[in-house]
Each structure stands twice: as structure tokens, then as C-alpha cells.
């Protein structure tokens, strides 16, 4: 029993680590724009499809190790490129205007990317190169898959790097000021447009790595990946509190744990139901997420206006 629970915990944390990366990407974008990028998952899928395309076209000619490395690079770069496209088309032109329009525009691009992906690789399942062919490690009754270790290691490394970037670099300072108060950031001379673009690239690259970790474990990429990663990233971000990076990490891990537990107890479909149910409950009861910020109290806001 305990061994099962520990295994569930392990599986949950591994999945959660990937979700955390997705959630952090969403949060970075939201922080600088105060808008949701609905095409985020699709851009990651685009990167994944480039990796699968590489495998389909050149998989036989390249040694496995090289193929895996190239696929990783192509996936992250593809995601970043797609993210650049989205930022320029959907968000930069609508900066000071309608937020809904920008979000719907990003949804339109999601449709574009899915259509493009289907044109590139028409089949539903497309093999994705995995770098490791190691047997799982058995510690007593626990099974530690190589992908688990890889996910933990990579996610931890990225977390440390990101923290350093945000707290100790000039770019990190600019990012945090924009997220904290866009108006104030302008008064100290921070170029909101440039920083937003860079934030997008960073978020796409991070998401690309998260996607790579998942695809490497699944060893395939399907057209559903866009929707799937959007949902996971979104839930992770909201659970931890919209706009909080540590929150997104905790939210991602929590989501992974809840899903693994739900699956172990009730099966895969109820698992999804629980994930969304948890999100809904958190939003209704404590909208600011775990690191909450309050809801709008209209009466208080009215008083302030006066």
C-alpha cells in the first residue's frame, strides 16, 4: 500500500514538474501582458511536430543520440519561433487596446498552427525521438523511470536558472517591474514592448523544454498536444495564483499529484474531472490561487474612486 502510494507520488511529481514548466511559461506571458496566450500550447506542439518531422525525414540517417539532441533543439527553437509570431501578430498590435481581441486572435493562431501541423504530418500519432533507452531503476518496490529522473533534473536546473535570471539580472528586474506595475515601469524608462517580446521568447523556450520532457516520455506527438498542454499550463498557473511564478511551480506539482492520485483511485477519466474540479473550486473559493490576491470588491473600488 505504502509502496503504491509512493509510486503514485513519484509519478505525480514527475508529471507535475513538466506541468510546472508549462505553468511558468504561461505566467511569464501573463505577467507582462495581463492577457492569456491561448496559442501557447499550440506553439509548443509546433515545436514537437518539427522534432517528429525531423525523425520522419532523417531518423534513419542519423545516430540515435544525435537525432535526440537535434530534435530537442528543433523543438525548443520551433516553439520560440512560433511564440515570436504570436507576439507580433496577436499581442503587440493590440497592446493598449482590447484584451479580448488579443486572446481571440491568439486562438485564431492556435487554429492556424493546428492546421499547419496536420499538413506537415497528417497522421494522428507521430513518433518522437527519445534520448534514453535505459531500463527503469528499481528501488525496492518503486520504479524510477529514466524519464522521471530526466524531468526532475531538467526542471530543477531550469528553476534555479530562472530564479537567478529574475532576481539577479537587469532583464529580470525589468520583467518583474512590468509584472508588478506596468505604469510605474514606464516612468523609470523600461521599454515595455521590447521586454514583452523577450519575455515571450523566454516563456516559449521554457515551455518548449517542458513539452520536450513530456514528448520524450510519451515518445510520440499527436494533434491533441496543443489542447492538452494549454489546459495543463493554464490549470497549473491558476492553481498557484495568476501571475505568481512560485505559484505556478507549486500549482503544477499539485496538479500532477492530484491527477496521479485521481488516476490511481478512479481511473483516467475521473482524473481529468478532478483536475478541472479542483481548478473550479479554487477559483470560486480562493480566486487568487494558493498565493492569493483578492477579488474585486466593487463597493470598495467605488469608494476609492470617490
Amino acid at each position: 500500500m505504502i509502496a503504491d502510494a509512493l509510486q503514485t507520488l513519484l509519478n505525480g511529481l514527475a508529471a507535475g514538474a513538466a506541468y510546472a514548466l508549462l505553468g511558468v511559461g504561461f505566467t511569464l506571458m501573463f505577467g507582462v501582458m495581463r492577457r492569456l496566450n491561448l496559442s501557447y500550447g499550440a506553439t509548443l506542439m509546433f515545436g514537437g511536430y518539427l522534432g517528429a518531422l525531423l525523425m520522419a525525414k532523417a531518423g534513419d540517417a542519423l545516430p540515435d543520440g544525435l537525432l535526440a539532441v537535434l530534435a530537442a533543439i528543433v523543438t525548443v527553437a520551433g516553439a520560440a519561433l512560433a511564440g515570436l509570431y504570436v507576439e507580433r501578430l496577436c499581442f503587440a498590435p493590440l497592446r493598449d487596446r482590447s484584451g479580448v481581441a488579443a486572446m481571440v486572435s491568439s486562438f485564431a493562431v492556435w487554429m492556424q498552427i493546428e492546421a499547419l501541423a496536420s499538413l506537415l504530418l497528417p497522421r494522428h500519432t507521430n513518433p518522437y525521438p527519445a534520448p534514453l533507452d535505459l531500463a527503469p531503476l528499481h528501488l525496492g518496490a518503486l520504479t524510477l523511470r529514466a524519464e522521471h529522473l530526466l524531468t526532475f533534473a531538467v526542471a530543477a536546473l531550469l528553476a534555479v536558472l530562472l530564479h537567478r535570471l529574475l532576481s539577479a539580472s537587469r532583464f529580470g528586474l525589468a520583467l518583474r517591474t512590468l509584472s508588478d506595475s506596468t505604469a510605474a515601469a514606464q516612468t523609470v524608462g523600461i521599454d515595455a514592448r521590447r521586454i514583452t517580446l523577450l519575455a515571450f521568447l523566454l516563456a516559449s523556450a521554457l515551455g518548449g523544454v517542458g513539452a520536450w520532457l513530456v514528448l520524450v516520455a510519451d515518445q510520440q506527438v499527436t494533434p491533441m498536444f496543443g489542447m492538452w498542454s494549454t489546459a495543463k499550463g493554464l490549470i497549473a498557473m491558476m492553481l498557484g495564483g495568476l501571475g505568481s511564478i512560485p505559484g505556478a511551480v507549486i500549482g503544477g506539482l499539485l496538479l500532477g499529484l492530484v491527477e496521479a492520485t485521481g488516476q490511481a483511485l478512479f481511473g483516467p477519466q475521473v482524473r481529468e474531472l478532478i483536475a478541472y474540479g479542483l481548478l473550479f473550486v479554487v477559483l470560486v473559493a480562493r480566486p487568487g490561487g494558493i498565493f492569493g490576491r483578492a477579488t474585486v470588491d466593487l463597493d470598495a473600488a467605488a469608494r476609492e474612486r470617490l
Partner: protein
Amino acid sequence: MSDFAIGLASNIGMLAFVALSAYLLLISGSISFGQQAYFGLGAYAAGIATALWDWPLMVALGFGALIGGLGGGLVGLLTRKLHGLYFAIATLAFAEMTRIALDLWHYQRMVDGEFVGPDGPNGFNGIRRAFEDGWDPATFMLLIWALLAVTLLALILFERSRAGVTLRATGEDPVLTRLLGADVARLRVTTAAVAGAIAGLGGGLYAHLNTYIEPRLFDIMLGVHALAYGLIGGLGTALGPLIGVLIDIGILESTSLFQGWRMIAFGGLVAVLLIWRPRGLLDEPTVRRLRALLARPARHA
């Protein structure tokens, strides 16, 4: 009218319901990614009413609208204090929960020697009441459009009323509206209920025209499309979402040659359109200008 045209017109009509549903919330300042849930609830409710409980068609359609309205109102009530994106995500979460719940739900009864009813992911077959009653695709299309016309008329009249203006004001500046005395929370819940009912009505019609529904149909794609129709056609008038549907389905049919590229081109067009017109073709300033133009001949007469 050819079968193809009838089918097309029916689709446009039914999609217009869910588009109007999202539109109503949009003008009140709420972005909902989840109106598809009430469309689906309405479809299932109306289908169960006729196929399992043997209710008359019109009553069943009303029941579908009622269930849609209850769902919308419930979510509106639970989320009334949420603003902006929190609300949007909450609606999305609820819609997905509904879809998954329908995927898990089995409710079948023996009717005329066979099992009928929602069968989880296998969907809900045999919603034949409309055709058993004598409706055919052409007359059913007329029914759809008649109900749509009534709904549109009601919405247009509403928008010109004091309540409608208050609703738009809430959308633009809820704090100010509160200062002026409006009970914004109650207005929001009522709007959510009405929007849910509109979607539910459309769902019931959908179920009876197609005779088969499954949970997969009521997914986020439908939800965000519903939003997009209003944003493309224009948020200045209830006719806007309808125009949005016409544009989308119109392009879908006229470029069937370029299957793969259609979505790429259309997506790009939408993105560019929104840069130019963030609130759609018939946005508020355009509608005002049109109204002024139309009023002029009357004055000269």
C-alpha cells in the same frame, strides 16, 4: 432550396444561438470560454425529454433552454465576484467538467424494445422526435430561424431598453455603474442565466436536427468559436455574432478546395481583422454611425 443549402442554413442558425450566448456576456464585460456547456446541457436535456420521457417537442425545447439557463445561472452565481480572466477560466473549467461528466454518464431506458439514452462517450443516439412528428429538414430549418429571429428581436429590443444600456455600462465600467446604483452582481447572474438559456435552446434544436449528440461536440473549440463570432461580426449589435457565423461558415464552404490551407488563411484573416477592428466589424461606433445614417431619411421626410 437544395439540401446542401438547407443544411448550411440550419448550421448557421444553430451556431448563432451559442454565439449570441457568448455575446450577451461579452457586452456585460464578462469573457466566457464555456457557453458550449449550456449548449450541450440543453441538447442532452431536450433529447432525453423527447426520446426517453416522450415529451412533446416544443416542451422539450423549452426544457432544454431551462436547463441551459439553470446551468448558466448557477455558474454565474458562483462566479459573480470574479472578474476578468478569473471568470473566464472558471467558465472554461466548468465547461470541461460538464463535458467529462457527460462522457462518464450513462442513462438509458428501454423504449420500444431498444436501449435509448446517453451512453457516455458513445453519445446519445435516436433523438428522432422531430422527424417522427413530421418535420423535415426544410421545415425544421424554418423553425430554427423563427426561434432565432424571436431571440434576436428580443435581444435588440433589450439593448435599447434601460436595462440593456445599464448592462453595456457594466461592461465598460463596473465601478461607475455600481456608483450609479445598479446591482452589478445581480445583473451579472441574470445575464448569465439568460445567456445559458439561449445556448440551451440552440442545443435542443441541434440535438433534434442531427438525432445524435456526443460529449466531444461540446468542447473548448466550440466555446472559443462562439466568442470569436461576436468579435468578428461586431459587438455593437446582436446582429454582429450572426454576421460572424455567416462569415466563418461562408468562408468554410466557399474555399472547400483548399482544405488544409483554409484554416491557416482564415486564422490569419481573423488575427489581422482584430488588429484593425478589435471589437468586430459592427462595433459600437459603427453601429452608432449606421443608426444616425438610417435616422436621417426619416427626419427629412
